[in-house]
């Protein structure tokens, strides 16, 4: 290996600065950062919506918002956080770190990856344009028929079309993750050695592929009924009202795990690092992740216990719902055992994980209660549910996301955040979170239904709601402190070095930030904790000296076998391209045409899609297309 070889690597992978490169890039790291930034903006928007909602609910009979404004805002809050923030945010981490953790130089389909991002951005802008116009979806994030089929205006069309568009992005992203992990792992990384974060992204992606079609179908039926007079959900004309709910929750419950499992992966990544020992019962954890993803498909009816289904049906789903507590139990105790048998180092990322365990256990316990059918039938659609799912979604996903930001940002930027401010941010967020959402358990038990823009005095809900509102602002302040600290680190943070946490996975064996080609040489892997494997790192240096597995000529990365991770072929990776963006824009034209009831514009969009697809595939590069 010579400097000249490294130079060639740099020249073939580095992308020029400038607008054209920005629009045509296929670098998984740039795309990952875009996912993270875009999702963060949506988090900010969804958060501001939540604060406005909390102001309205600060006391009984307040009139800050009209019912219409409230209903649009709570619907957009849910749609934003579920569809436009959590999943894309975790995709961002996946995009950036899955290739790095498996020792690859990019995702399996880099152009498809760029396409996924652009379509996500387009659908986010499409959905948010409705709020700008004051006609945002106003039937909640699960938009039950027939409220959603009969409501006038374009509000629900933005929902239906926007989510169909987003599903294209999410599905393409999931397929990309699956193939990346199946084929691009560094030689020696047999499937059982793949990092736990990758396992969780793999389980999530498999769930997406099987769950999302149910939502897409639902939205397709919705639009057919709204725009062209079909009767899928219309009981007066042979349709069935509950069809919407079944399809929605066949997607919706697996989606809970689509959101939660990557967070599990983050937790299982961070705990061994800050306990300074390999994960206890690692194989059990992997099985728990896969079992959760699988069982998640068999529990959807517990969202529908109050709709009047036969008891036997409900009993079956109650049993299935309880079963899913087992893999969760395995996860939690595997984490605890790792901490107990390790040597914990209390740094900010780990602090968030400790907070996560506390909060998630509360959310998990209140979750099991919903499998108890009579309790569910009493409590569902009350504020208790709002409390529960914020404990599992904010507590279970956002805490790990913030932990991951602190954990991985030094790798991405090469700079460390301030530890003291990091801790202060954690305590504000932890206290604010619990002050916001714990009282909601009680307001729900006291009979307060969810999705009400106002409530009467005299039911004992006023004080609890005031506490929630105060908590929301403490939480928001904590988030600002946290974000400011991270932003400051980008500018003035201390240099992070390659591996500031003494972590065990491959991304920590390359420089911070990683070079455009990720690794100068395909890393050697002989265990599940390759960065702690000093002999293997010595191998890397030897390989580099000998120029083995460097692939300095063009975009190339190692392709390996699915299970064993044995070197199989050298894969040619595509260069940047503008076609993914062109196809995404064409799709946006189609949905915009449909929402504007302009069949000509929609048809034009479809023609553009065909042209873009043709252009994309016109010259297949040797080896492998995008």
């Amino acid at each position: 290996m010579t400097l000249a070889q490294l130079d060639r690597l740099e020249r073939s992978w580095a992308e020029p600065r400038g607008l054209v490169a920005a629009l045509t890039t296929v670098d998984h790291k740039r795309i990952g950062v875009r996912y993270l930034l875009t999702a963060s903006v949506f988090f900010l928007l969804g958060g501001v919506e939540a604060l406005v909602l909390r102001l309205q609910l600060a006391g009984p009979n307040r009139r800050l918002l009209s019912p219409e404004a409230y209903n649009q805002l709570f619907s957009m809050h849910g749609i934003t956080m579920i569809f436009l923030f959590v999943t894309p945010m975790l995709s961002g981490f996946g995009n950036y770190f899955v290739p790095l953790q498996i020792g690859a130089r990019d995702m399996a389909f880099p152009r498809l990856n760029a396409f996924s991002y652009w379509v996500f951005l387009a659908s986010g802008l499409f959905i948010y344009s409705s709020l700008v116009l004051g006609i945002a979806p106003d039937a909640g994030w699960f938009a039950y028929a027939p409220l959603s089929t009969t409501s006038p205006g374009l509000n629900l069309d933005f929902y239906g079309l926007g989510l169909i568009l987003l599903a294209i992005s999410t599905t393409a992203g999931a397929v990309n993750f699956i193939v990346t992990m199946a084929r691009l792992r560094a030689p020696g990384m047999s499937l059982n050695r793949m990092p736990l974060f990758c396992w969780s992204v793999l389980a999530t992606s498999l769930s997406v592929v099987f769950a999302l079609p149910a939502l897409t179908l639902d939205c397709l039926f919705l639009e057919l009924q709204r725009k062209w007079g079909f009767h899928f959900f219309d009981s007066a004309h042979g349709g069935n009202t509950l069809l919407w709910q079944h399809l929605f929750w066949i997607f919706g419950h697996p989606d809970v795990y689509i959101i939660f499992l990557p967070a599990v992966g983050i937790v299982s990544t961070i705990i061994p690092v800050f306990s300074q020992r390999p994960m206890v019962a690692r194989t059990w954890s992997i099985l728990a992740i896969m079992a959760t993803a699988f069982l998640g498909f068999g529990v959807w009816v517990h969202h529908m216990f109050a709709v009047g289904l036969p008891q036997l049906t409900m009993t079956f789903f109650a049993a299935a719902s309880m079963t899913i507590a087992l893999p969760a139990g395995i996860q939690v105790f595997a984490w605890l055992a790792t901490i107990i048998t390790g040597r914990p180092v209390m740094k900010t990322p780990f602090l968030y994980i400790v907070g996560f365990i506390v909060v998630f256990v509360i959310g998990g316990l209140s979750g099991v209660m919903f499998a108890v059918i009579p309790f569910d039938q009493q409590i569902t659609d009350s504020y208790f549910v709002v409390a529960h799912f914020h404990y599992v979604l904010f507590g279970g996903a956002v805490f790990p996301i913030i932990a991951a930001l602190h954990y991985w940002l030094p790798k991405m930027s090469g700079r460390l955040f301030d530890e003291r401010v990091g801790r202060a941010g954690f305590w504000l967020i932890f206290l604010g979170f619990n002050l916001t959402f714990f009282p909601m358990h009680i307001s729900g038990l006291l009979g307060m239904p969810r999705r009400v823009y106002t409530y009467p005095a005299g039911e004992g809900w006023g004080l609890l709601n005031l506490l929630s509102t105060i908590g929301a602002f403490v939480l928001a302040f904590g988030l600002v402190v946290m974000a400011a600290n991270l932003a400051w680190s980008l500018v003035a943070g201390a240099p992070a070095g390659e591996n500031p946490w003494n972590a065990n996975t491959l991304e920590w064996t390359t420089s911070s930030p990683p070079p455009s080609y990720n690794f100068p040489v395909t890393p050697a892997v002989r265990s599940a904790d390759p960065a702690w494997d000093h002999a293997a790192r010595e191998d890397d240096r030897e390989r580099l000296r000998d120029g083995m597995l460097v692939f300095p000529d063009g975009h190339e990365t190692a392709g390996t076998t699915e299970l064993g991770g044995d070197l199989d072929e050298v894969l040619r990776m595509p260069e940047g391209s503008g076609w993914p963006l062109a196809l995404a824009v064409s799709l946006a034209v189609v949905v915009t045409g449909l929402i504007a009831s302009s069949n000509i514009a929609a048809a034009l969009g479809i023609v553009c899609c065909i042209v873009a697809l043709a252009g994309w595939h016109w010259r297949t590069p040797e080896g492998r297309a995008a």
Partner: protein
Amino acid sequence: MVGGVSLLTLALSGCGNQSTLTTDSHASHVISNLWWGMLAGSAVVFAIVVALLFFGLLRRHGTDPAERDRIGSGTWIVATGGVVFPAVVLVVLFVVTVGALPATSPSGRTSLTIDVVARQWFWDVSYSGTDVRTANEIHIPVGESVLVRVQSSDVIHSLWVPALNRKIDVIPGETNEVVWRADRAGVFRGQCAEFCGLEHALMALYVVAEPRREFDAWLAQQSRPGAAPATTTLERGQQIFLGSACEYCHTIAGTNASGTVGPDLTHFASRLSIAAGTLANNEGNLAGWILDPQHIKPGNRMPATALSGTELQLLLAYLESLR
């Protein structure tokens, strides 16, 4: 957690009567017992997990090799805490769940059948086998099981009176049932629990549980047509009602008013509330409601009615006479 529990106690001491933590009916009592039992169990699990977590974080690591050996690889912690323990707890919980189903499900003999049609945004109530039709207020006899059949005329709603039983969703095209049995006399508040559009928040109702004799008297009273105007003032009030837009949407049995868009007003004055539990039923609130219902409940189906001061007084007098 200590803060949470004291918050709980504080809140409970001042609770209204839409609370689920009630013993006003057997069904709700069974459910609230489930809750307290699960809370106790959850508190134990939570305490164990947090204790283990803090044990792991705070103990001095690695100084005592004997302790390390005692703990071993840690897999046994996962097997015990993550598999054996939850499996046992869940089996118990499942048995309890199945055991609690009969108390909250429609079964057994009922003495009365009430039909409730949910509409955006009020409850249209009629008593099977009688001519009684009312709105947003359901009277039931104490100590008797009554069958409530629910249907929707538009979107999905959910009938929820926590003191009497679980909620039941109201699904277009289906008829669902719930059985209520109040163990004591009282007025129990309930509310729509499934988001049903603009005024979902203001779709409440009251259930009045009263001894059988009083209930029978109420039912007999409600079966009669609307009171004929006894004075000229009331007669003029009735003319204003029948001569304005009111009659297109409301019914008053015994008059030409037979609209079905809004609540039946035949015995309006006997009710506790106006606009589905939004306002207490008194003359001042009623005047405000008639003149500007869109201010009080924006988006509801009732338009403002322009009336002179005299006309309003006459109309109010008439409506307040409809006992």
